[in-house]
């Protein structure tokens, strides 16, 4: 009896809180991890996204209406992300979706977006096969592991003089993908594989893994890890007294990574699609705006969120209405001038044309050592 009364009450609350049909704004749904082990990176995406929406609205919005960003916490979990999408589509009636952060979560929400026929842009998820699933509603405004590996394998092998490399990645789709792609491309260049090992999200102690690394004696170690795991791992590599070249993928070219890692960050290399030190006028303007808003230089994820929402807003403006099919068509015609180059989508929805950079952390700043355009995949 109590239970059913509770049920009635919840139903009532849901009914009462249903929106009073605000048609005077355009809603975009954003699903990012706001809690959990990658919450910090997810929040950077949200910061960038808010900055972009602020700019668009300050310039009068799109189609004469302001854009409203509806943010949901997907926790990087497939199930929670799917729930978030259901809520965004059914209750908030968003015109377009942006998210989710982790590749496995994005893979889970892609079929949902397709079922509701709502375009979905991911700003981050880089697992290569997401764009191979023939989902016409899916767009990836980000690099893939394969594209990054192809852009940088040769530069890395020659400029760091690598002959024998160990690979360490976080144990999920993204980490495993990064390790596979880089080891594949570096092996093609004749670089030997000294060791491959993975660790779980949220691990804090890497001494056991690093003991194995010390015995393998590589002249370089590739790491696929995000800010928190990566900073602790790099720090412990130096604590163990292992003096090898460290390079990798993840949000390493950020002020926070450098602050957390301390002196151990000195001299490591990171292949990133964005660094605040990229030398382009558009980027300098973006860095200044970001710093004014958040007192911190933008990193990979701040820029990713910013770019995705700029692309989304421009597509809605081009579509001329909020019909999902029109927005989808407009997205295919994207030619967006980002701080880090020009974004266009190929037929599968994969972005290309923007610059990716190899940075070296020096004196607490990411210095760009090489830059390479991310080409359309064949």
């Amino acid at each position, binding site marked *: 009896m109590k239970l059913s009364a509770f049920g009635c009450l919840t139903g009532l609350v849901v009914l009462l809180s249903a929106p009073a049909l605000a048609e005077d704004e355009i809603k975009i749904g954003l699903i990012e991890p*706001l*809690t*959990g*082990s990658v*919450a*910090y990176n*997810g*929040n950077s995406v949200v910061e960038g996204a808010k900055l972009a929406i602020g700019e668009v609205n300050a310039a009068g919005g799109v189609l004469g209406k302001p854009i409203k960003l509806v943010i949901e916490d997907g926790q990087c979990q497939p199930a929670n992300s799917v729930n978030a999408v259901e809520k965004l589509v059914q209750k908030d009636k968003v015109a377009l979706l942006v998210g989710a952060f982790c590749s496995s979560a994005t893979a889970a929400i892609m079929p949902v977006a397709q079922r509701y026929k709502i375009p979905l842009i991911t700003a981050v998820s880089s697992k290569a096969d997401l764009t191979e699933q023939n989902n016409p509603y899916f767009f990836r405004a980000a690099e893939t592991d394969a594209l990054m590996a192809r852009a940088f394998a040769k530069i890395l092998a020659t400029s760091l003089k690598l002959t024998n490399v160990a690979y360490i990645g976080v*144990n999920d789709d993204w980490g495993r993908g990064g390790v596979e792609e880089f080891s594949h491309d570096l092996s093609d260049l004749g670089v030997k594989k000294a060791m491959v*090992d*993975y*660790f*779980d999200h*949220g*691990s*804090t*102690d*890497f*001494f*056991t*893994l690093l*003991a*194995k690394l*010390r*015995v393998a004696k590589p002249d370089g170690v590739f790491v696929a890890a995000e*800010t*928190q795991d990566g*900073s*602790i791992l790099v*720090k412990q590599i*130096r*604590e*163990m*007294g292992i003096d090898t070249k460290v390079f990798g993928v993840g949000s390493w070219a950020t002020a*926070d990574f450098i*602050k*957390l890692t*301390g002196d151990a960050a000195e001299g490591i290399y990171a292949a990133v699609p964005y660094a605040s030190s990229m030398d382009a006028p558009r980027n300098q303007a973006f860095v200044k705006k970001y710093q004014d808003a958040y007192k911190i230089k933008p990193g990979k994820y701040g820029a990713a969120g910013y770019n995705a929402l700029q692309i989304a807003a421009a597509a809605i403006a081009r579509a001329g209405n909020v019909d999902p099919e029109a927005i989808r068509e407009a997205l295919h015609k994207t030619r967006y001038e980002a701080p880090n180059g020009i974004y266009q989508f190929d037929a599968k929805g994969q972005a290309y044309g923007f610059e990716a950079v190899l940075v070296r952390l020096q004196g607490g700043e990411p210095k760009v050592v090489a830059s390479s355009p991310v080409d359309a995949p064949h």
Partner: protein
Amino acid sequence: MDLFLQFLTNGLVVGAFYALSALGLTLIFGLMRVVNFAHGEIYMLGGVTGWFFTSALGLNFFAALALVIVSMAVLGWLVDRFLIERVRDQGEEAGILLTIGLSIFLANLTLLVVGPAPMKVVGPLTEGPVFLGPVVLTKLRIVAVAIGIILIVGANLLIRKTRLGQAMRATFQDPMAARLAGIRTDHIYACTFALGCTLAATAGMLLASIYSAQASIGGLVSLKSFVVVILGGMGSFPGAVVGGLLLGVAEAMWGGYVATGMVDIIGFALVIVILLFRPQGLFATRVERA
């Protein structure tokens, strides 16, 4: 062989950290019969306040540690007097619900105030390697293990030898008799909870100087601590120590010789084995509540 020694040392160091993290949980359960699901969040708060005192206020590590101990003891005391007291003697479920709610509240409050970014506690020592024969360690780790041992022994002595400890054990054995003997049991419960929180927060700060502090690590810490406590036996002090070391060494060996990618499986496999063959844990003192 060298590699084996390195794995063993890693396991023992991490195991000592596990034991230290789990101590507060087992203490509160053993003495108060409260399953504290907010344990991980108290640990997290220790790290975050430690960060605040060292990095934001620029205090010395040990001065900051003292401040963390005092502030967390006060917090623990207040939580018991204002929250846990209301559900005392209403069975374990009420306490579980209360502490789950508290854990959600604390984690989200911290997210709101300091944000989700990882934070660094400035340690008391430099972080260079120390070579002991074939084994590599850092000074900070050696110091942390030493502080951990001091805390474990200290807490044990407090419970075994002092008047307060006697009163705690008396209250736990028979609250009614303890009250009749003139013990202020409310005060004792609050002190016990404060002690448990202090231990958890100290562990949090100590380990945040080696790893990092973050608002959302509480859940993972609680989970590992429960593994340790179930292995050792709920409420047993030596059990927590042995459980922690066992888990640390088992993880290091599995990570070293099999794969580090699935290391979290080990703790739970051990728990299943223990529950099948020795459900009271390795060291449980089978005491019934009066």
